[in-house]
């Protein structure tokens, strides 16, 4: 995991996002 943040901060859906503790993440992987 490379980054994590709160993409719903300030949006109308923030309350629901906070209720489920939603977090945005950037993830990378490589195929063998």
């Amino acid at each position: 995991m490379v980054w994590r943040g709160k993409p719903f901060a300030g949006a109308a859906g923030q309350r629901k996002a906070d209720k489920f503790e939603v977090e945005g993440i950037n993830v990378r992987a490589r195929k063998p």
Partner: protein
Amino acid sequence: MPIDAERLREEIRKVYTDVAHDPKRGYHFHTGPEYAAELLGYPREELALLPDSVTAGFAGVGNPLAMGRPRPGEAVLDVGAGTGMDTFLAARYVGPAGRVIAVDMTPAMLERGAESVALTGMRQVEYRPGLAEALPAEDASVDLVISNGVINLSPDKDAVFREAYRVLRPEGRLQIADIVVHKDIPPAGREDIAIWTA
């Protein structure tokens, strides 16, 4: 009772049809280039090079390309490309010798994408209709798979990852941005389409 996948897809299509037609209306989630720059770290100067038809409808939740840019000549596939902000940024990086396959299941997004290809002249971008769970690409045909705020909307995430693996070449990269929950959603919530889409 598990969620009805096709009904979920129809509800998602409705939301994103609205985003395609009226990106600045205001949704439960943020949209647009200002949000992308301020909250997600997209470089403003690069966003400024893209037309409004591409950036205004951006509805991602992270920044897949911040983890590594594709190289000139590479093939990229964007799962759930939407209006294509990540797609067209990738297209700038791969250049005319590369290609970017923009997959989306919403007809309005496919139309908007085709218009943006014509507007920008970036022929390395090709919009293809398809599902994240059944990607319209051949085995081992792309160097990089990206996705931004899409996989959370799939009721079969295993299938999405199997498909990403299938289309990637050996040593290919998967770079995704998405949302996760740290608090379990109760069964009734998992069956509520409104929880999925808003």
